[in-house]
């Protein structure tokens, strides 16, 4: 193993890890101004990680080292989580400053969680994937309860922690049985050994292990029926962390699931395709129906994020190594979803001001006071619904056309029907913004912070640009290989 090359390839995240520890020490050394400095260091390190990942992507290195395998897909995943974390850090500064909670450890935890995601995305060994998931999640458990003087924050953190740890136990049991039956935890070796294992006498134990791993991942991506924690955790957590959970954590889990599923699901056969079919259908239908009944914007977006996980799962029943268009569809969808969800949560953070949460009524009159914010929110919501010419439309288009090509027509019909239902709850805030008068005049006094405007602007431009020229983004995804 060439250590210099290894260090070079992991350099983006070594920088982030270093920044995380620096920020942590800074908190003990600096009395005043630690908040702004720690935010600046976090932002710089994440931008550096984004830039270096991009450089790796351009250089197009494909190599397996120890428990990690690098390729363009890995680097693309790194870029997605770097962008999502940059959004979270930008959004956090103003949010924490308003609540006088600007502690450096907050940023340190975000950076640590990102390092966990990076190893989760690059991992080609089940143990590293487990450790990546844990490093990612343990930091987010603490962040979800960061508003520790609020009972809602404590409750969110406790629920997220208990269900998360419960899910890890399932994932781990699955890994133990896969290890026991195949004598390896390396995914590449595993893929080669699958035929012998499946015809051997340990096959049923192996299938049990795969099922447990699937349950573990289903908890992490909040697929129905393992979704019960998500609305509560999303609602009670600080809004920037809700954004982090909905974008970065979910994207990283999906990247890992793609890597784990492509060898396992393929070999295991039609029984599992059926299970994933049911998982996907239940997730999008229940996510969309429950979102219909929400007045709280954060809860609505939580259920919407469950529904979107269901759409992404549409590709999984027919996934195999011979279907690159399905993998690309999922990745394209995840990128689109990251931008529109990050933007929506930025608007929610603005609308809630000092409050604990934001109801639909909070955005009433937004169009008059802050026409650009209202216009951006409209674009984000239209994109989430899937109207052309936004990025969300092309995300759905590439995902579903790939799925139809591979024969899951029934599932795509269900997905289209349930996304028609979703139009109702996505369009409601738009109506409230443009046609309702604001009640308390909360929005009059506050003007959005520069960093918040930056998040909204970047997400807005990305959605419109890639919505009008989707082939640019599709080319990047397609050139990333499998």
């Amino acid at each position: 193993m060439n250590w210099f090359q290894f260090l070079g390839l992991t350099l983006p995240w070594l920088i982030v890890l270093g920044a995380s520890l620096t920020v942590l020490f800074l908190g003990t050394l600096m009395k005043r101004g630690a908040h702004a400095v720690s935010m600046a260091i976090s932002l710089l390190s994440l931008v550096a990680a984004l830039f270096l990942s991009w450089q790796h992507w351009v250089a197009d290195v494909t190599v397996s080292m120890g428990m990690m395998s690098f390729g363009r897909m890995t680097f693309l995943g790194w870029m997605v989580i770097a962008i999502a974390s940059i959004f979270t850090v930008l959004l956090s500064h103003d949010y924490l400053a308003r609540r006088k909670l600007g502690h450096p450890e907050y940023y340190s935890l975000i950076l640590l969680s990102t390092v966990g995601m990076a190893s989760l995305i690059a991992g080609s060994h089940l143990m590293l994937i487990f450790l990546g998931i844990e490093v990612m999640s343990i930091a987010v458990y603490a962040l979800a309860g960061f508003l520790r003087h609020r009972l809602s924050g404590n409750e969110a953190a406790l629920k997220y922690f208990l269900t998360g740890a419960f899910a890890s136990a399932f994932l781990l049991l699955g890994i133990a049985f896969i290890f026991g039956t195949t004598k390896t935890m390396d995914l590449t070796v595993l893929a080669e050994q699958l035929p012998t294992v499946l015809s051997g006498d340990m096959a049923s134990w192996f299938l049990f292990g795969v099922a447990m791993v699937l349950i573990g991942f289903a908890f992490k991506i909040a697929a129905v029926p393992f979704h019960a924690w998500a609305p509560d955790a999303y609602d009670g957590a600080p809004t920037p962390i809700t954004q982090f959970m909905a974008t970065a954590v979910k994207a990283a889990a999906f990247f890992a699931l793609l890597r784990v599923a492509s060898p396992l699901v393929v070999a295991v056969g039609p029984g599992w395709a059926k299970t994933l079919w049911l998982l996907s259908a239940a997730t999008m239908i229940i996510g969309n129906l429950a979102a219909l009944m929400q007045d709280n914007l954060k809860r609505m977006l939580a259920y919407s994020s469950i529904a979107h996980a269901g759409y992404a799962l549409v590709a999984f029943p027919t996934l195999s190594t011979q279907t690159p268009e399905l993998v690309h569809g999922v990745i394209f969808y995840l990128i689109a979803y990251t931008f529109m969800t990050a933007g929506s949560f930025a608007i929610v953070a603005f609308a809630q001001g000092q409050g604990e949460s934001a109801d639909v009524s909070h955005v009433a009159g937004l169009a008059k006071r802050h026409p650009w914010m209202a216009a951006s929110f409209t674009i984000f919501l239209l994109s989430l619904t899937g109207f052309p010419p936004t990025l969300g439309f092309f995300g759905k288009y590439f995902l579903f056309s790939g799925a139809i090509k591979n024969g899951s027509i029934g599932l795509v019909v269900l997905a289209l029907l349930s996304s028609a239902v979703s139009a109702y709850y996505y369009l409601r805030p738009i109506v409230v913004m443009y046609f309702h008068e604001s009640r308390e005049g909360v929005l009059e006094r506050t003007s959005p912070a520069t960093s918040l405007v930056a998040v909204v602007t970047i997400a807005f431009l990305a959605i419109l640009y890639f919505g009008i020229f989707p082939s640019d983004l599709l080319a990047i995804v397609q050139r990333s290989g499998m």
Partner: protein
Amino acid sequence: MTITLQHYLFLSLVMFTIGMVGVVVRRNALIIFMSIELMLNAVNIAFLAFSRWSGLMEGQVAVFFVLAVAAAEAGVGLGIIVALYRNKPTVYVDDLRLLRG
């Protein structure tokens, strides 16, 4: 009677199930947390049994990782429970119903 791999796996799965039932049935956050630890230790038994049976060290190394992760989880989890207790002196998850709808 010799003790075979199947016996260990049976023990592991029984322990795992007891832990799982504990998480679902009990309402005390600390007991739920202990049940989760029981599930993780059940997995450790499975790892060790498989490792011994196949003669590979990987399973034993995995147990160390699991122990380390369980310790980190305990640190954060108990911290969350303490923070909760300061705001509302209860450890029963049924008393937490702020987030609903």
